[in-house]
């Protein structure tokens, strides 16, 4: 059977499964649509959160980022998991007790202000739309590589599948398809990792293999990797870094951004009890950690494999001939994600770091510049081919990458559509709307959101990579502090909360735009985006944490200068703190 046929079977089979689940879990009420009827088991919810959270970025890109940056990019591992500790202790149980459908609804009620609710809706929509573009674009790439269709056609197929189960089933359909998608993606991620860990270290658990002995050289695998890449002029993989302030702030921004992203928070509204919200945060992190503990092993092992493929006789010998390159390099060259130029015209592939420090060595060896450019996003997708694994593993990776992208896209689309139908239409425009009417409005806004996301996925704006940082910055600087103060302080009032959200948001956006261009329009940046120009060495990607601090400070100062919140609001804060009487998530 051809690889193409295998891929079709795996991807097609997984899609049929998702649609079957959607038909079984059709939503009959707004409660079904927004919170899956509020009856989801905490472990089931944990797996659904895992799929919701682990996007194309976690599945496809993260290992490549770690492989390229080594220790310095451990920030992604800690940042994207540490946020769950904050969720479990600072937000999830109390928001579950509050027992409504959306994040802006809590902000609007707690700060007794339609304007606060509106600010929250805008933050939510901007953060979620920017995030969903990346998912749709990622699904397009996976389609074009594995199913050999045009990426726009691939995107349309993906959109139709999401449309069927998200519009029909709402949160109920999405929850149960996400559980299936979690299983597909975690199996797809771990199987190649286990094989590669066994090949290189003899240890079947990748997270342990990472700190074990490399079978071929007898050295610890990380020492071997350090040696190979420093021989070729790259920085040591495990080297410590100087700018610790930026590393701390970047990790903190990712953590509080994670805790403030609405599509994750609303998943906690689906469990029956407050105690279940706590458990399901723990289960979610277990399911997420299965991938996150494996990713750093995939990163270092794939990088070592790539280097030994190019330099089979060691770094001091000559690299392989271009004509004898393995098949997977040929296949990825077709996509343009691997590029080779024979700069010194010797017919061999010189892969090394073109740095000034390494220039004398390169010259002495007759090298005329680095000749192989490998896009770091292909690392996970090409991993099974690099390690010569059988064809069905490749089909599995294709289905897994699509599961990761589609499950996150569906979660984001639900967050967007509920903000539109519940917070905008029912909350402001037409409060008298019937439940049937609201359900229809939710389905229509979901359909519109899918069309917009598909269009933007097919024609991604040039700034697509930067907007993900923007999504985390917005969630960290606006939503997280407002939610946390709403629960932990009785003194913060409407004026304080709105002033806090707006100043945190403005501060963060201005800092990002100064370095990245206003609204990301090229040429409008005021300062070059390089470490020398950053204030105190803080990168625009790390500024969300500082924005959150600005939000907290402004909200407290303004609240203390203005009147106390009314008694009934102080009682509302009391009531979310105590689990008794949570009942089902409901409308009123």
């Amino acid at each position: 059977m051809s690889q193409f046929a295998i891929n079709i079977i795996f991807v097609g089979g997984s899609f049929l499964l998702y649609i079957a689940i959607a038909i079984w879990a059709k939503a009959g009420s707004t409660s079904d649509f927004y919170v899956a009827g509020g009856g989801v088991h905490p472990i089931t919810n944990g797996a659904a959160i895992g799929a919701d959270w682990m996007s194309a970025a976690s599945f496809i890109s993260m290992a490549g980022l770690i492989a390229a940056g080594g220790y310095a990019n451990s920030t992604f591992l800690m940042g994207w998991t540490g946020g769950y500790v904050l969720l479990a202790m600072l937000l999830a149980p109390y928001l579950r007790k509050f027992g409504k459908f959306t994040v802006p609804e809590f902000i609007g009620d707690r700060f007794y202000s339609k304007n606060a609710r509106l600010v929250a809706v805008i933050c939510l929509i901007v953060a979620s739309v920017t995030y969903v573009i990346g998912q749709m674009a990622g699904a397009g790439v996976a389609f074009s590589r594995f199913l050999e269709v045009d990426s726009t056609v691939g995107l349309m197929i993906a959109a139709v599948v999401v449309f069927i189960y998200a519009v029909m089933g709402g949160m109920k359909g999405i929850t149960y398809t996400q559980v299936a998608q979690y299983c597909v993606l975690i199996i797809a991620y771990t199987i190649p990792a286990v094989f590669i860990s066994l090949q290189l270290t003899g240890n079947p658990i990748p997270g342990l293999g990472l700190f074990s002995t490399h079978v071929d050289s007898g050295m610890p695998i990380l020492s071997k990797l350090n040696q190979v890449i420093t021989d070729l002029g790259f920085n040591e993989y495990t080297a410590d870094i100087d700018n610790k302030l930026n590393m701390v702030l970047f990790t903190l921004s990712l953590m509080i951004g994670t805790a403030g992203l609405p599509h994750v928070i609303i998943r906690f509204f689906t469990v029956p009890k407050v105690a279940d919200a706590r458990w399901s945060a723990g289960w979610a992190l277990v399911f997420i950690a299965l991938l996150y503990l494996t990713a750093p092993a995939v990163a270092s092992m794939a990088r070592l494999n790539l280097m030994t493929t190019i330099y089979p006789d060691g770094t001091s010998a000559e690299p392989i001939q271009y004509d004898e390159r393995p098949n997977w390099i040929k296949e990825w060259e077709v996509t343009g994600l691997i590029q080779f130029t024979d700069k010194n015209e010797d017919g061999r592939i010189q892969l090394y770091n073109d740095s000034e420090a390494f220039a004398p060595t390169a010259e002495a060896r007759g090298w005329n510049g680095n000749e192989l450019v490998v896009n770091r996003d292909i690392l996970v997708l090409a991993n099974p081919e690099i390690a010569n694994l059988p064809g069905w593993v490749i089909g599995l990776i294709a289905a897994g990458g699509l599961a990761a992208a589609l499950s996150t896209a569906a979660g984001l689309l639900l967050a967007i559509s509920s903000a539109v139908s519940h917070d905008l239409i029912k909350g402001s425009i037409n409060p008298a709307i019937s439940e049937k009417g609201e359900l229809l409005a939710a389905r229509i806004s979901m359909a519109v959101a899918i069309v917009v996301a598909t269009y933007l996925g097919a024609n991604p704006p040039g700034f697509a990579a930067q907007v993900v940082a923007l999504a985390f910055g917005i969630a960290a600087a606006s939503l997280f502090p407002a939610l946390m103060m709403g629960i932990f302080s009785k003194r913060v009032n409407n004026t304080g909360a709105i002033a806090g959200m707006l100043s945190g948001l403005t501060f963060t956006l201005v800092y990002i735009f100064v370095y990245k261009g206003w609204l990301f329009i090229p040429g409008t940046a005021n300062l070059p985006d390089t470490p020398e120009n950053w204030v105190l060495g803080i990168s625009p990607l790390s500024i969300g944490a500082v924005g959150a601090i600005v939000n907290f400070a402004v909200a407290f100062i303004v609240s203390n200068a203005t009147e106390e919140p009314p008694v009934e609001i102080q009682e509302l804060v009391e009531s979310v703190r105590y689990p008794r009487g949570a009942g089902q998530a409901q409308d009123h």
Partner: protein
Amino acid sequence: MSAGHSYDAEAYWKANLRLIFGSLIVWALVSYGFAILLRPMLAGIPIGGTDLGFWFAQQGSILTFIALIFHYAWRMNKIDEKFGVHEE
């Protein structure tokens, strides 16, 4: 909460805050501490070709986070029962 339970309610919230505070100290220590700021101090403890700080950055902190959440959920559900604010 009726007025008769207000003392309990206050003690309950304090117990929750204490537990959160303790958990977040550990949370910060393993990630911002061991994995980033204190890594040079742990450089003397070798593990598989690198040092303990690197292990915390890529494995240890995540494992600690899981333990922290389950510990919090377990303790907090007990505290709910002790103060009688748990759900039936």
